[in-house]
């Protein structure tokens, strides 16, 4: 049967991992490729690189990171951040990325989802949604890294994204992000039920219990986490062992 996925997320700025890492076995804790290869070895199911480089003229650095990653990492990996055109997408896929994540650019130009899916297949188009609660059972889509409200309803937007050809939804709760209070389960479940695409839960994970809740009560297909893995609070193996004990099917490390 299909297993649930655990996906570490790496924030990359000008070719370097920015959130701290406590991996003593790394020669260079700031090198995203070395960290990615370690996560592959430890049993991560996929990886996501989020390029937070502000200026687009430094974006070539990320293409180089992707190229080097493809030489050493043999699990699927996704690139997000600052991809605005079909050409941007093509460059990342050609460099060796398996999927790309669109956020702000997809909201501003939904046709990009359609064109990307048509040119490269839905399987490589992930739509990343930053959601903030506005009322009980209502969430609004935010863009520009969570700084700009769009007036778009999250559930309507994910349905539109699916219709346009998105292959997966990466759902981040802005209310929970960085809080370590757990995923926003009601939001995650609502999105999982609104679309028939795989949903990756993100934002708020602080414990292994949170991972399990995201997959069971949140009905997500995959869980994304950054700090709990980067700071070695838990290893991938510990996370998988815990999930397995909870009766959740995961790929053994």
């Amino acid at each position, binding site marked *: *049967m*299909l*297993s*649930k*996925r655990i996906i570490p997320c790496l924030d990359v700025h000008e070719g370097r991992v920015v959130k701290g890492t406590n991996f003593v076995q790394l020669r260079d804790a700031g090198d995203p490729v070395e960290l990615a290869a370690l996560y*592959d070895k430890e049993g991560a*199911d996929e990886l996501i690189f989020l390029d937070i480089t502000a200026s687009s003229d430094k974006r070539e650095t990320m293409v180089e990171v992707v190229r080097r990653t*493809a*030489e*050493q*990492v*043999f*699990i*699927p990996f996704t690139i997000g951040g600052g991809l605005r055109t079909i050409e941007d997408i093509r460059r990342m*896929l*050609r*460099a*060796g990325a*398996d999927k790309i994540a669109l956020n702000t650019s997809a909201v501003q130009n939904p046709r990009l989802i359609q064109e990307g899916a048509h040119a*490269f*297949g*839905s*399987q*490589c188009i992930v739509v990343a949604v930053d959601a903030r609660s506005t009322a009980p059972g209502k969430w609004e889509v935010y863009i520009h890294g969570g700084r700009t409200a769009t007036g778009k309803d999250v559930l309507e937007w994910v349905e539109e994204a699916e219709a346009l050809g998105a*292959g*997966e939804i990466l759902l981040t709760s802005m209310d929970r992000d960085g809080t370590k209070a757990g995923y926003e389960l009601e939001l995650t479940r609502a999105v999982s039920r609104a679309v*028939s*695409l*795989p949903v990756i839960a993100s934002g708020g994970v602080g414990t292994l219990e949170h991972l399990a809740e995201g997959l069971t009560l949140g009905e997500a*297909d*995959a869980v994304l986490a950054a700090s709990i893995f980067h700071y070695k609070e838990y290893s991938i193996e510990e996370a998988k062992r815990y999930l397995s004990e909870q009766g959740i099917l995961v*790929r*053994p490390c």
Partner: protein
Amino acid sequence: MIGIVDYGRGNLRSVEKALEKVGFEVKIMTSPEELRGVDGLILPGVGAFADAMEALKQGGWILPITQFARSGRPFLGICLGMQVLFEIGEEHGEHAGLGLLPGRVVKFPPGGKVPHMGWNSLNLEQPCPLLEQIPNESFFYFVHSYYAEPNEKSDIFATSDYGVVFAALVGRDNIWGAQFHPEKSSPWGLQLLTNFGKLVNDYATLSSH
């Protein structure tokens, strides 16, 4: 030397790097003339069935690939490259495939999430050289919305379960097809590519004598 068919579909770089990682010489081939110098061949692919067949046709690949497969040299189709080995694909209407294996490619029944995306385990149905040293229920990475239904049970070497039990690894003589992505299925996928590379080396050694 293992050739990878570049017909504009699929993540060639991943397949190339994975084979290099396990120690094999690889060549990405942009024209059918290059087929002559290779001992083994990989046909990758993502996207739609008809679109892939059209791209193979446009590139003049169909006859050379068919001849290669019939020459006895090891040949492996991956994902969509596996599906087009069959006679007919039902994605967006009925379309002819390469017809190297008898059977059709059909859509997952409604109910589950499509595409089938993620890590699923293989049930080994019969031993074969590609599965050597790979334990039963090892996990591999899949991304697909359609699956192959071979006519002959003897062509199925491993299955996987996604609501329906479907053919995950198929083969006949020197022709192999993997529905999953071995190049993205560390560590067992790399073992499978190692096994394929060995078949290629064995063939090359045998034919040079």
